[in-house]
């Protein structure tokens, strides 16, 4: 019987490579604890201000040709003293406000509860978490999910309409692409929702003995794939909504001309 012996010298051990954290991770690790909360406050604050501006201060529906801004879809009342966006924005904004990911973001950044991990809290009042009004209303997240499902359906319909030029021909324009990417990102965010993950199959203990257990297990696994990147979907879809809206504003103001092909 032969035995293979691997010789290990102290020198080879000493020079063993260690990759350690990558350059991006090193930069992130070296940032002060307040960098993330400050970024979140800035970005969410700007998004809030932009939403108010585009929904209530720009006058009329933000629509250009067959492109309809996601802030105004579905258009329920086109005329009246109140902006049509008011009837639409409620459910997506509340859906995001009660979203498990955004809860982490604003509890840390706006409420400082805590501002960062292992960092002392600045306010030492009686803590109630999500056991009391109004924060226990976050438990209603699943109902806002149902409403957002309807809105997402309309956004897909808007993309379908965006493929049709006003003269009835099929068109492929930059705006069509922006709206398509936007609705894909919004769908990725919506269908990666933790509540949806629970409803679709996460709430079951025993898939093998449940009605539609196999299908629900498979659905749960698919939703889990989306759910693992929920923060990425959340941020990207938020930016894509703004980009789509800005683009349509620019078309509407005549500053840009939509490059497109008509078939």
């Amino acid at each position, binding site marked *: 019987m032969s035995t293979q012996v691997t010789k290990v010298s102290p020198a080879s051990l*000493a020079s063993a490579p260690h990759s350690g954290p990558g350059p991006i991770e090193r930069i992130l690790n070296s940032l002060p604890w307040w960098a993330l909360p400050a970024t979140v406050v800035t970005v969410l604050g700007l998004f809030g201000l932009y939403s108010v501006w585009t929904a209530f201060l720009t006058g009329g529906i933000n629509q250009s040709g067959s492109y309809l801004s996601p802030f105004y879809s579905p258009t329920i009342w086109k005329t009246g003293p109140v902006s049509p966006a008011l009837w639409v924005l409620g459910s997506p904004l509340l859906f995001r406000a009660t979203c498990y990911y955004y809860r982490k973001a604003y*509890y840390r950044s706006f409420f400082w509860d805590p501002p960062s991990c292992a960092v002392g809290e600045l306010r030492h009042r009686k803590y109630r978490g999500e056991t009391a009004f109004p924060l226990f209303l976050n438990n209603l997240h699943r109902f806002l999910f149902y409403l957002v499902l309807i809105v997402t359906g309309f956004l897909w319909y808007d993309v379908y309409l965006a493929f049709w030029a006003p003269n009835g021909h099929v068109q492929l324009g930059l705006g069509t692409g922006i709206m398509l990417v936007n609705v894909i990102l919004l769908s990725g965010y919506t269908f990666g929702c933790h*509540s949806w993950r629970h409803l679709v199959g996460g*709430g079951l203990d025993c*898939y093998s003995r449940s009605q539609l257990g196999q299908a629900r297990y498979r659905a749960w696994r698919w939703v889990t794939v989306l759910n693992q990147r929920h923060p990425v979907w959340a941020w990207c879809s938020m930016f894509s909504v703004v980009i789509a809206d800005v683009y349509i504003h620019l078309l509407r103001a005549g500053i840009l001309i939509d490059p497109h092909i008509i078939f």
Partner: protein
Amino acid sequence: MAVVDQPAPSAEAPVENVLTASGLTGETLTLRVLKGVPGGEQAEVAYQVPVVSGMVILDAVHYVQHNLDTDLACRWNCKAAKCGSCSAEVNGHPVLMCKTRVDDLPAGPVTVHPLKSFPLIKDLVTDVSRNYEVNRQIPPFTAAPDDGTPWRIPQQDIDRLYEFRKCIECFLCQDVCHILRSHDYSDRFYGPRFFVRVASLEMHPKDVLDRRDQTRDQGGLGYCNITKCCTEVCPEHIHITDNAIIPLKERVADVHWDPVRFVGRKLFGRNGD
């Protein structure tokens, strides 16, 4: 048994070769360890430790214990990130000392403090027995009395429970959770580690107990505001928030926040699934 002495470096050998052969990098680490006992004076003591290639913080603490301060108290066991004993706060972050490499830390002095959320015993050793008291409050695994063995459990029914079994009970998640750390709600809040345990039992296909109300009322699940610090510090990379706490919150919502399921239960007598 043959004993081989490490050959002494020859006087002619270049300095770099001597350092490489012994693993020494030629650098010195300033280790600031919080020393003290409850009720007594506590202060950071600085030690100068020669850095060895691949050194982890636990190595540095051992160097201090063996060469500079034999009185320094530190709990450790496996040095392989599997026993969960050497939890401490390095540069303010709750970590396992045996898994924290010196060359991964920013240059400069490194502070080592005991876990803040637990009562101090001495130096880096804290009393984590409170966790075991919480653990005793959780009803153990309970199968149906008529569920005979052996069990045949399909893989899909048990898949997601493996992750929870990876917990090594280092209690870093309990330490970093602000509800225990800053608000000291240990009398009304189980903490992340025990929500993981409840989740592993609640989702088990053979467990028949309904733990949702107890987890909400006695366990204080509603206090958790999902800031995910527990997930960030977990050395076993368990997705504590996404896979244990949020699913438990959703299961509680099934009972207390879902009128559709409430009507379904009243009409059909089902559990809402």
